[in-house]
C-alpha cells in the first residue's frame, strides 16, 4: 500500500542561470528555483500495478526519486505500508526495490557479487542471501552467467542482473523508472514478465513509461503527471473512459489538454 499526498520539490537555480524563452513560458520556473514537482498525489494498493505517464521533463523521475528516498521532498507525505518515508527513510528503504533502464552494475564484479553486495547492504545474513540469490537466479534463468563479470555481459544479462539486484531483499514495493526505455525487444519482455510475476505475488509496482501498450497490458491504475502536477489519477477503466473509443493515446492527450486549460485559467 502506497499513499502519496501533495508532494512538492524545487531545485535552486544558479544566479547566473539565464532562462531560455521556452523555459520562461514554463510555469514551474521562478526567479530562484525550478519547481520540478508541485503537487503530486496518488495511491496504489497491494497487488496493483500503477503506470506513471507524462511528457519528458514532467517530473516523473523526480517523483520516483522522492518515493525511493534518494531525494527529499520540500513538502507532502509518502506512506509505504504505513511507514512515513520522510520520517524513517532507512526503514522505508528496506521495503523499496528500485530499477531504471540506465541502472548500472559494477563492471568488475560478477552477477552473483553484484546482487550479493546489495543484499548485504540491505542487512541480509549470508545463509538467507545465498538461498534468495539461488531462487532468483533460477527464476530469471541466470545460473549460466552467475560468475561472469558485468563488463562482459550482454544487455539482456545485465538487465536480468539489475532486476535480481532490485528485488534481492524481497521489497514490499517496487519502483521502476522507465525500465524499458532503450532496451531491445527481448530484454523488454524480460522486464515485463518480471512486473507480471511481482503482480502475481501481490507486490505493488509503480513504474513510469512512455509506452501505452505496456500500460494497457499491465496497469491497474494510471497517473498522469504534467508540469509537476498529477493531472489524472484513477484506475485504468476511468482512464479509458476519457476518450470516446477507449483509446489510451487520446485519453492521455485529453488529460494534458485539460491540465493546460486549468493552468491557463489559474494564471489568468
Amino acid at each position, binding site marked *: 500500500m502506497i499513499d502519496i499526498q501533495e508532494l512538492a520539490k524545487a531545485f535552486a537555480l544558479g544566479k547566473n542561470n539565464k532562462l531560455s524563452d521556452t523555459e520562461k513560458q514554463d510555469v514551474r520556473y521562478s526567479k530562484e528555483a525550478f519547481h520540478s514537482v508541485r503537487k503530486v498525489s496518488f495511491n496504489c494498493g497491494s497487488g496493483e500495478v500503477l503506470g506513471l505517464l507524462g511528457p519528458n521533463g514532467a517530473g516523473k523521475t523526480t517523483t520516483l526519486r522522492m518515493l525511493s528516498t534518494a531525494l527529499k521532498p520540500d513538502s507532502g507525505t509518502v506512506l509505504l505500508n504505513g511507514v512515513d518515508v520522510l520520517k524513517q527513510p*532507512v526503514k522505508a528503504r528496506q521495503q523499496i526495490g528500485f530499477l531504471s533502464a540506465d541502472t548500472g552494475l559494477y563492471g568488475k564484479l560478477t552477477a552473483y557479487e553484484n546482487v550479493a553486495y546489495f543484499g548485504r*547492504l540491505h542487512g541480509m545474513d549470508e545463509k538467507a542471501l545465498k538461498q534468495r540469490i539461488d531462487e532468483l537466479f533460477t527464476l530469471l534463468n541466470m545460473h549460466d552467467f552467475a560468475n561472469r563479470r558485468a563488463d562482459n555481459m550482454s544487455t539482456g544479462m545485465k538487465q536480468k542482473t539489475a532486476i535480481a*539486484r532490485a528485488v534481492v531483499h524481497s521489497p514490499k514495493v517496487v519502483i521502476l523508472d522507465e525500465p524499458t526505455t532503450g532496451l531491445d525487444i527481448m530484454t523488454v519482455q524480460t522486464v515485463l514478465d518480471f512486473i507480471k510475476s511481482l503482480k502475481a505475488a501481490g507486490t505493488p509496482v509503480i513504474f513510469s513509461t512512455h509506452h501505452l501498450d505496456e500500460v494497457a497490458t499491465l496497469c491497474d491504475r494510471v497517473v498522469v503527471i504534467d508540469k509537476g502536477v498529477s493531472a489524472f489519477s484513477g484506475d485504468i477503466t476511468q482512464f479509458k473512459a476519457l476518450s470516446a473509443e477507449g483509446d489510451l493515446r487520446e485519453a492521455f492527450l485529453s488529460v494534458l489538454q485539460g491540465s493546460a486549460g486549468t493552468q491557463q485559467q489559474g494564471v489568468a
Partner: protein
Amino acid sequence: MWQVYFKELTELMRDRKTLIFVILLPIFIFPVIFGVMGLVLSSTTSKAMQEEHRYVIVNAEQAPEFRDAMFYHKNFKQVQTEKTAEADLVAAIRNDEFDVAIIIPADFSVKRQAVEQVQWQIIYNQSSQFDFMYRYFTDMLATYNEQLQRETLNQLNVDPQKLAAIIKPVDAKKVDTADKRENIGEKFGAVIAYILVPLCLLGASYPAIDMGAGEKERGTLETLLICPISRISIVLGKFLTVLTTGLVGAMITVGSFGIWGAIIGSFAGMAVVQEAMSAIAITELILIFSLLLPISAVFAALLLAISIYARTFKEAQNYISPLSVLIFVPLVAAMMPGVELNAKTALVPVMNVALAIKELIKGTADYMMLALIFGSTLLLAAAAIGFCVHWFQQEKVLFR
C-alpha cells in the same frame, strides 16, 4: 561501512589501471627515472672533469716552471697565437680559438728579483656550470707560488727545516660534527619527501575518481543511495578504500626505494646511496609512515569530495589535475635552502610533513615537533572528512 569497503577493494584489485598506478608505477618507473637522472648527472660531471682546455700563455718565458707545469697537465692543451693584447684575447676566446688565456706581465722576472708582488691575468668564459678549469689553474698556481716562496726564502738563508712552518704557519684540520648520515639526509631527505607525498596523492586519485564520479557515470550511485545504510557509512567506506590505496602506494614506493637503493648502491661509485639507506632504521620508517597516514587521509577526503561533485570521470580528472600541481608548491618550499622545521613551519600542511621526513632521515628529528605535525594534520584530516560527509548529503552535489 565495511561492506562498502570490501566491495570497493575487490573491485579495485580487479582493475588493471589500479595495478598500474598503485603498484607498477612506484616499483619500476621511479627507480628508472632516478637511475637515468643519476647516470646523466654523473656522466656529464666526469666529462667536464676530463675535458681538455686549450690555452695560451702570454710571456710564458717569464715563468718557465709554471709554463712546464701547465704543459704537462692532462687537462690543458697548448695552442699557438700571435695575440697579446687583452681585448684581442677576449675576442679570440669568443671566437672559440682557445678556451683560456693567461697573461704574465713582461717584467715578471725583474719584479721577482726585487721581491715585489705581481698580478697575472686569467681570461676565460666563467658561465660554465662546472668550473673545473679554474680549480686546476689555482692548484697549479698555488704549487708555483709555494715553489717561488721556497726559492726566495732559500736565497734569504732561512733554515730549510722551518720552511714549512714559515710558508704555512697555521694548518687547520677539518673535524665534521655532522656525521655522514646528517649530510646525506640534508641532501636526500627533501627529495624523498618530494617523491613520497605526491605518490600518496597519485595512488589515491584514480580509485577516488572511480568511486565517486565513476559511480555516477555508471548509474550505480542512485541504487547505492537508496540502500538502507546511512550515507555516512557509504562515504567512510569509500574514504577508507581511497586511503588504503594511497597508503599501499606509498608503502610500495618506500619499499621499492629501499630495495632499488640497495641494488643501485651495490654498484661501484654509488656507495653514498647504500650508506644513506643503511642509516635509516625501522623506527624511522614507521615514523615516516605514521606521518604519511594523516596527510593521505586529507588527500583521500579531498579527492573523494571532488570526485563526488564531478558528473563524469573526465570532469573529475580536470578538477584533480590542478590539485596535484598545487601539492608541489609546499614541497618545493620545503626543499628551499634555509627552510627548517620550527613551530611555524610545523603548522603548514604538506610542507611540515616534508620537513619532518627530512629530519627523520637526517636522524635529528624532534619528537615534540613530530607530535605537533601529526596532531595538526590529523585535525585537518578530520575536518576534510567532515566536509566530505557533509558534501555527500547535499542533493545538489549528488544529482547535478
